[in-house]
């Protein structure tokens, strides 16, 4: 596994979303997402000493005949990962101080993740939301699923306000099977508005990952000039001199981020921050790694077949 570190500015200059995804995924190590869990798969991994109670079907008779010892064959379990990606399409995602905005970046990231899973023959679904869930592609593996996912991503964000809590309620309703739920959003709304629903989702034993997309300007406020600033979602205008307002903003934003992190940690949800100037393959790798360490997938498959 190696980090290619593709410059997102260069990557997002490619117009075709599928091509962007392929460029990232092809650079990654093949089979990255092979399940770390052992099970009854066709691929042998090791032997272990038979102990009473083991299923005799897995007893290696040939070894018993040669060595007269009872060994149980252990196999890698091929996980059939079910993943649902929730993508925030609200107006706040259309902000960008770079030549591309957060929505472009997040869309490319979702496409890359989808293509990655699709190649692994995992089941991928997509749900787009702003103040509600307005577009939904159920998770399944079939021919053309990735194309459908791309067409959903091709839609420009139209919603005004963000209401993550309401969107999560709908996900809870329609996504009953335990899945890997990846929430891609800027998480700029008040955590109290979605904390409860997120806890509910986590309680349903879904493997929830939070990927927070932030523009560098949102993190530093090194942006703009003294003018009337208009909120992208509410349209509210206030006069802002960024030099004067920077300190207060950073304080407020820091407090907000801290509260988001606290909520995520409290719920045991992996929370990754993805600045839009960060190479996509790095983000993808970190997400996978953090997911492996957290052992979330264990909860998803839930069985040790060894």
């Amino acid at each position, binding site marked *: 596994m190696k980090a290619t570190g593709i410059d997102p500015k260069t990557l997002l200059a490619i117009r075709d979303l599928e091509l962007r995804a392929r460029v990232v995924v092809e650079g990654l190590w093949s089979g990255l997402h092979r399940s770390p869990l052992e099970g009854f798969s066709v691929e042998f991994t090791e032997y272990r000493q038979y102990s009473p109670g083991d299923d005799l079907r897995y007893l290696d008779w040939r070894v018993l005949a040669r060595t007269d010892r009872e060994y149980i064959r252990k196999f890698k379990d091929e996980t059939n990962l079910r993943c649902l990606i929730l993508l925030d399409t609200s*107006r*706040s*995602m*259309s*902000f*960008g*101080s*770079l*030549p*591309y*905005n*957060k929505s472009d970046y997040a869309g490319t990231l979702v496409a890359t993740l989808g293509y990655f899973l699709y190649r692994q023959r995992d089941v991928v679904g997509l749900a787009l939301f702003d103040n509600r869930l307005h577009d939904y592609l159920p998770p399944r593996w079939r021919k053309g699923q990735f194309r459908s996912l791309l067409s959903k991503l091709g839609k420009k964000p139209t919603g005004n306000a963000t209401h993550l809590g309401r969107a999560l309620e709908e996900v809870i309703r329609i996504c009953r099977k335990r899945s890997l739920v990846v929430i891609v959003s*800027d998480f*700029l709304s008040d955590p109290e508005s979605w904390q409860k629903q997120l806890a509910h989702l986590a309680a349903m034993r879904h493997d929830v990952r939070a990927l927070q997309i932030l*523009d560098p300007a*949102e993190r530093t406020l090194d*942006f*703009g*000039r*003294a*003018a*009337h*600033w*208009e*909120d*992208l*979602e*509410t349209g*509210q*205008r*206030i*006069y*802002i*001199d960024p030099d*004067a*307002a920077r300190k*207060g*903003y950073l304080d*407020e*934003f820091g407090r*907000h981020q801290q509260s988001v992190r606290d909520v995520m940690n409290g719920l045991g949800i992996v929370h990754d921050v993805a600045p839009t100037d960060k190479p996509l393959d790095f983000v993808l790798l970190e997400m996978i790694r953090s997911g492996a360490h957290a052992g979330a997938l264990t909860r998803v498959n839930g069985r040790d077949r060894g």
Partner: protein
Amino acid sequence: MSFLAPLFLLGAALIAGPLIFHLIRRATRHRVRFSATQFLRASRPRLQKRSSLQHPFLLFLRCLIIALLAFGFARPFFKQELPVPAREGKLKQTVVLLDESASMRQTGAWERAQTRLIELLKRHSSDDQLSLLAVSSTVSHLLSHELWEKNPVPQRLILAQNILRQRAPGWGPTYLDLGMEAALVELDQMSEISGRTAEKSIIVVSDFGGGTRLSGLAGHDWPVGCVVRLESVGGMEPGNVGVQWLGWLKTVNSGIGARLQLIGSGDDQSVTLQAFDAESDLPMGEEQSLYLPGGSKRVALYPFAETPSGPVKLTIRGDPHPFDDQFWIAPKRVRHAAIHYIGSAAADDPGQSRYYLERATAGWEDPLLKVKDGSELLDSKPGDLIFIEGNPLPGQRSALKAFLSEGGMGLCLLADSSQLPFIQDLTGETGWKLNLTPRNYALLGEIDFQHKLFNIFADPRYSNFSNIRFWDAPSIQLPQNSRARVLAHFDDETAALVEVSVGDGRLYLWSGEWTPQASQWVLSSKFVPWLQRLMEQALGGPKRPSMIQVGEANRLSRGNTVTWQRFGSGAPEPSDPQRPGIYLMKAGDSSHWVAVNMPPQESFLEPLSQADWENLGAPLNPRESLASEQSKEEVVRFRTAAELESQQKVWRWFLLIAAMILAAESLVAITISKREGTGIPA
């Protein structure tokens, strides 16, 4: 710099666009969209001058582009001293006739005429031929076409202005017919010199007052293609009252008065008349108020307390034009003369010639005549007439001969052969005969109508003497090689009236007596006028009038040397009187006062109608008004300007500079946009 389409300069007002844009955009451009304003706290706005413009340099460039485009579309060009474009087609020959008559002295007319003339001259191109004439009672050349062509184009107008500056209206009548004839002659000369086909026009600048004389234009042959344009400069205030002299009149209380005709024009007028002594300026009568209905004439008698012995000044007050408000009156002059009758006839015998002589001369005013007996012949003086009937006495004969030799005049009725020795003695010629053969009757055949005694009958209307029969008229036979001259023949070719010089004087010999028995002569209508004419000859000619009009002074000289001295001036005038006033006319030993006045018709300011011209066949061009001429000039000027503009093509430079500035503006705008445009969402 001039512009062919100056209205496009209004496009420069579009500069307001960028100005407003740069003011308004300041507010819109500074709007920044952000995703996390909930973490921001409103800042305190910085103080800025509302009048400050954003990016003034960029604004300057944009304004400059608009201004350059506006100037470019306005099609600028630089004026050059190009020759005035020659007219397409024919050459233009123009004669301008300027009225300098007395009526041009009406308020404002002369100034308007000068202004109009300058306007006319300005519109003539370099190719045009032009001549400027002035007309009043005579025609004078102010600017000949040779002088016009000889001078360079820029100098022509200056020359004309200098000439006009030195001119002023005179006091004479308006003889426009004379002026038109002179203008036509001038046009002919121009055509001969140029040898080209030309558009001929006569422009008359005048007030066209009602007294303008046009009668000479009747039946005139106008050249083909010649047009007459009338430029009227009068009629602003047509109301006026003028005076015409009619003569002296005895009043009912045996006084004397001046009989005047008042000529009104325009609206109704109320005027006052008053006479003043020209020397002392003291009133010589009461002020008279008179009312004249508009455009009417009326006769008025201004009575004098006593017969004026000196010049009189009559003033008219109450009309708007002062130029004719003074009228000069010379004192009444009477000529006295006598007819010395030499004969034996009684004055009251109708069978005698003297009876008819006295009847025919009774009541004459000029001269005041008295018939005297020949016995007083010694009292005779120059201007008297000796009338001889029969044979004078020997003492009378010598006196008569002396009188005639000194320039006197005599008339002898020849009826008897016994008179012939006396005639031979007087004339110094022998061979005079009288044929007394009776005849049925004789008629006057050949008459010398060129002679001063008969020239008043020269007109065919009055030349009929065929109804005067002579029954008892002997035939006069002249001596051989006689210096005598037959003035009238009978129809049998014998002499009826003979003129013989005697010294410096003259003796007329009339065949027969002046009685109804001898002939119908004394009863004919020709008799008294002929006798009047005879007396005038005796007095040296007709009475010189003492009331004349400006321009008539030469009529009084009769070939003699005459000097004029203005009243109150010690020196004689260098020429005949050219302005109204009282003058002392000296002719030989005699002198008398003469009042010179403006022609009365010049006071009639009611303008002539166009129909008056049309009736005379004048080829008027009424539609060719000054305004239309100006519009033509505008077209020519526009074409010239368009030609200049198309040659210079200055607009291309404006557009080129505008394009360059536009490129610079784009660079500046991009630079500024890059520097500040981070706030614009992608």
